[in-house]
């Protein structure tokens, strides 16, 4: 290159806003997944021990019907679409769609809580049995996760639409969506490990 002039690089791009909330949420999600991994691991281990010793895992007179759990799984899958829709709508500053998507997500979450509590009434499983203890603890903890995820998503949507984040900067809602996807993933494991395999 035949030039002796000093070349200056163009100004660096403005630094991205530190994605503190997203990083913190990702870490919290990792911790939450580990908590469920431990609980479900204990459930499967106890179930395996009971079956290998020739006993039954479900006490006599109890049953875990598959229908409510499967409907819950389908509902959670739908909520994966609606939470993605909410994130996308906020990115386009499309308020009506964002509110609608958030409302649907909350409705789906409440529906899963409803189907799970209905399932509780159908199982006839007492908490003072080892099976009941583990089933209620794992699924109850997941209900708490659903509530936390819904509150997180609602707060972040309102804060985003209220102006704290704007347009493409939607870190808060992306963080809430990440937590919600983890909630769906945990439900999928519970659905298979508890509701299907019983």
């Amino acid at each position, binding site marked *: 290159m035949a*030039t002796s002039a000093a070349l200056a690089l163009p100004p660096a791009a403005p*630094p991205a806003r530190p994605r*503190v909330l997203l990083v*913190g949420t990702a870490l919290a999600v990792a911790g939450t997944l*580990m908590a469920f991994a431990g*609980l479900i691991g204990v459930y499967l281990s106890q179930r395996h021990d009971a079956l290998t010793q020739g006993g039954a895992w479900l006490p006599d007179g109890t049953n875990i019907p598959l229908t409510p759990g499967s409907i819950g799984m389908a509902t959670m899958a739908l909520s994966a679409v609606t939470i993605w829709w909410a994130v996308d709508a906020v990115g386009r500053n499309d308020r009506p769609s964002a509110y609608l998507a958030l409302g649907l997500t909350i409705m789906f979450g409440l529906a899963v809580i409803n189907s799970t509590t209905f399932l509780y009434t159908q199982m006839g499983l007492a908490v003072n*049995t080892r099976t009941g*203890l583990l089933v209620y603890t794992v699924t109850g903890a997941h209900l708490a996760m659903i509530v936390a995820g819904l509150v997180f998503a609602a707060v972040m949507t309102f804060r985003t639409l209220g102006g704290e984040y704007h347009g493409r900067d939607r870190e808060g809602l992306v963080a809430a969506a990440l937590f919600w996807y983890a909630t769906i993933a945990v439900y999928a494991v519970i659905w298979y490990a508890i509701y299907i395999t019983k």
Partner: protein
Amino acid sequence: MAVTETPPETVATVSATVTSSTPPQPSGLAAVLGSGDHKVIGRLYIATSLLLGALVVGLGEAFAIEGIAPKTLDIFGSDSVFQLFTLARVGTLFFLALPLTIGVALVVVPLQVGARSVAFPRAAAASYWGWLLGSGLLIASYAMNGGPFGGSSEGVNLWIAAMGLLVASVLVAAVALATTVIALRPAGLYLARVPLFAWSVLIAALMWILTLPVLFGLIVLMYVDHRHGAGTYIGAPTALYPSIQWIFRNPQVYVVAIPVLGFLGDVLHTVSGARMKLRSVAQAAIAAFGLLSFGAFLVAPSAAALDSYLVVGMGLLAIVPLLALAAACADVFRAGSFKLRAGVLYATAAFLILLLSVAAGAIGSIPDLLDAPTGGALGDNIFFLGVGHAAMLAAVIAGIGGIHWWATKIGRQPANEKLGLLAPLVLLLGAALTVIPDLVAGVTGDEFQRNADWTGGYAGTNGAVAAGIALVGLGVLIAVVSFLPLLKRGDDVPADPWDGLTLEWLTVSPPPLANFADDLPVVTSAEPLIDQREET
């Protein structure tokens, strides 16, 4: 051809906004109770953990003294001996080792990574108050005849809830610390350039986040079983301690000691005054040690699980990162010079005790070397009591050393250097005397016995353990006395008493509310202060 880079203007704009809009610092009680300043929260963690640590050390000393002559010295009643034993173990980890480490990290890590605050400052404050409340409730549960082996149902419930609060609080602090290192670094301070202490805290926090939730899940299970279920499975008072025992044995117990490695690396690097050529080796060693300390899979382990290839392999391999880090630290002195500082002694003492723990853990991992625990025992060979104590003591020594090393950032003046040279030697001797007799007793087949008297270890060697714990207490006392200058306001407190290399030494001592008065320069190496000296 000259190439220049125009720094982003927005950095200056944002920083100027932050510094110019800094509100006045609150004073009095409001400055403590309502503060979200990471330095205040860290100081609270440090002071409270040292206070609660006195209880733990005193309890450990009482057990060792009873062990000298268990038949004649009846310090603990037969109905409380096992409860208080669990208090000593849980307390060592959750009252002393973990919160002391968190306290030092909360003060130092944001400064090291050039952050104006810790991430989620209100959550960090909540973690302290939650931890304090959990600690108080845990002690209250024992006072109510609760806890493991306790006779009061309400006391057992309270113990489980307090444990949950303690674990949750530690997790919140871990998220805040890890996020600070990941997301709040200034321009140019890539993860590969992060100071080794901050790097080790990141690794430790990640390991806490990946393992302690498993404990939290078990605690939820315990609570549901004991409070609402039959209380015959994991929530039974006799099942509580065995269910959490995995956090006190290797490899899991090593997670509390990961910052020891970063402290050693940082201190030796700083006193050498030279750039660390094997820095990537040091970082990889710390990360590898973190991975090898993952022990959550040992929840309710069986004897077969403990002899698995995974556990044996992890136990044997864990020593390699320590040796690699030692080599990387030694290499830095080829270019630099050695200066004896109290921080060097603290770091070396902590590292040696951790090395003892990991080497013993490696030996203990060899199948069939140690007797399997019998049904009547508390569930483990006394050998692993020594391994766990060594790891936790290493963390405590490093934590105290961290207070000394970063005294001008944590307190108002430097610590007393002469006493600081004495304290780590006393702590090293005390820790070795505390740990080695248990290791010897374990190798020769001794176990905990669930008798009315405390019979852990041999009566003869328990005299050495008692002397060791007394020396640990003395060492902590000497260190605390050496810290008294930290409480006094001083003039001309040096910003950088050690000719430091990293960003925390750039700010005044004690640091202001937003940590740095001016905008930080763009970081161009792992030793930004060497760069600065070379430029001037």
